[in-house]
């Protein structure tokens, strides 16, 4: 479970002064549900997800992930979270297996559990053929599978995906989408951000529209359709943002 309470992040910029990247955002994401965070570039999606993954520290408010406060117990939060984004690259000089094992060890798994877990994941994701290949020799699809294996190795209860399919080909993107769907089936709490509206319709149980760091609208896809009297999700986002449209783009 994820619960954010007035989550805020202010960056100090020498030229532009204080920038409120995330402004008083509160939402709840329950186990077995997928929460989609939608918004333009620079709206505050990545910053929100980074704060949930404790890569960034909130400047105001807080969030509780699996009962642990992101400010008070960041290491315990990270132990419950699998974080995947286009920015989370792989170590080029480690093999696929070594990389997954490394993260398993950092998550405190003992060698026997680690071996069993790695074998299971590699078999499930059909990765055995390239487990001994160095990550810099892997294809994009193989790299994505290795990244998924990395996020799964410690069997986290919460999965955070930041635009996980951006820049990927159709086949690799499908692997990710079915993986996210599988996470829900396994009862995990899933939050993800995306620009691809078909993914939202297909996956999200709950959607939050964020703009200029503020959570402007929240609900299920049918609820939002009814509220904005609009079927197309892109149009819903535009209507939710309203007259503020374009500010985020200019800022990013």
């Amino acid at each position: 479970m994820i619960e954010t309470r007035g989550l805020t992040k202010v960056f100090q910029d020498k030229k532009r002064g204080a920038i409120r990247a995330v402004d008083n955002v509160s939402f709840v994401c329950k186990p077995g549900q997928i929460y989609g965070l939608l918004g333009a570039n620079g709206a505050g999606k990545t910053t929100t997800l980074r704060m949930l993954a404790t890569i960034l520290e909130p400047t105001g408010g807080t969030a509780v992930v699996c009962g642990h406060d992101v400010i008070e117990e960041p290491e315990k939060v990270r132990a419950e979270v699998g974080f995947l984004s286009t920015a989370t690259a792989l170590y080029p000089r480690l093999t696929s297996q070594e990389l997954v094992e490394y993260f398993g060890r950092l998550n405190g798994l003992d060698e026997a559990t680690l071996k069993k877990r790695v074998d299971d994941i590699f078999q499930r994701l059909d990765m055995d053929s390239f487990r001994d290949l160095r990550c810099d020799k892997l294809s994009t699809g193989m790299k994505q599978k290795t990244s998924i294996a990395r996020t799964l190795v410690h069997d986290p209860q919460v999965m955070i995906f930041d635009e996980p399919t951006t820049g990927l080909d159709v086949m690799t993107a499908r692997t990710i989408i079915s993986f996210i769907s599988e996470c829900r089936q396994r009862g995990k709490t899933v939050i993800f951000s995306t620009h691809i509206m078909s993914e939202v319709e297909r996956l999200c149980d709950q959607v939050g529209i964020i703009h200029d760091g503020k959570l402007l609208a929240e609900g299920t896809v049918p609820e939002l359709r009814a509220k904005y009297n609009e079927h197309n999700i892109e149009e819903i986002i535009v209507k939710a943002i309203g007259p503020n449209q374009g500010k985020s783009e200019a800022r990013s």
Partner: protein
Amino acid sequence: MNLHAVGIVYRKELTEWLRDRRTLISTVVVPLLAFPLLITGVISLSSIMIGKAEKETSKVMIIDGEDSPQLLERLRKIENLEIVPYATNWRDQISNKEIRAAVEIPKGFQTALESSNAETIKIYFYQGELKSSFGANHVQDSLKDYRESVVKERLAAKNLPASVLSPFEIKQENVAPPEKVGGATFGSFIGYMVIILSMTGAIYPAIDLTAGEKERGTMETILSSPVARLDLVLGKFLLVFSASLTTAILSVISMGSSFYFLGRTHSMTSPNSPAMHINLGLTSVIAVFLMALPLAVLFAAVLMTVALFAKTYKEAQSYLTPMTFVVVIPAVASVMPGVELTPKLALIPILNTSLVCKEIITGTYHWNSIALIFASTCVYAVVAIFLAVKTFQRESVLFRS
């Protein structure tokens, strides 16, 4: 701090490091090959060049001197010397390396010599040009012999012994033990090299593990794992420190064996030359390493901290290259003759270690200074590690855009 987590990070960094050709070359291959190649290369090249220059028949021109046939005859008899006909552009010919030197004999030299009023014979040559110097030296040596023979003839004519010119002899003799002589000659150099190489050995891994990680996009991956920032920094730091030590140890082994073989070869050819007496004690070398340890810690931590500010490998290189001078300048200053260890200098990092290494190598152990320098460098090192950890916790540095 979780030592188990530090160990996991260190092992992973070590695996990656051993697989990185670029850092391996700078840490292992270069120090192992650079010294033997440099030392043997420079020495063989210079001995070939000198040997060739010595054997060359130098073309020398004589200006005037027709009225001094005895002197001319003497010059013509010099081995490896060819007297060429006089030309007015002799200065240009020397500059253009067409002839090696020119000898100007004053008018009426022979007559003046007999009446003890002889003027100066001038030898013109190309200063800094090896072959020209050899040509000029051949002429000068021959003229000195001639002068001595004239002196002897004159003393004999007056029934005076040759000892009248040098009533007593002066001789310098070394009483310092060979290791101290070796230490004075090469000791400061070894301390200097250990310091410089512990720095250069740390540069590439420091960049690779910080800015390199940002550039490759793995920083966010590792930061999303439950490892504490402190453990992450310490694991990375230990690898940079190991690389720094490896470079320094391999360099000293390589340098020591090169000098050893050079010394043996030299003592076979010229056994009385003291300059090549290299007899450094193992204890001294180990002591130098112990003194350099906290300095290597300091380098590893400072380099990592600075490199972390960069977003790319290239940017980090441009930050760290000027830092090399910060290390080279005090290290060079310590090698300068006359720079001695004082209580004030004992607090200046790098310079203090370099100076104390110079003393240790010569077998001098001033325990108070050693303790002060070791302790002060340890303090600087701990502060540097603390700074590195703090920098790793700064979002503005990790996610600089």
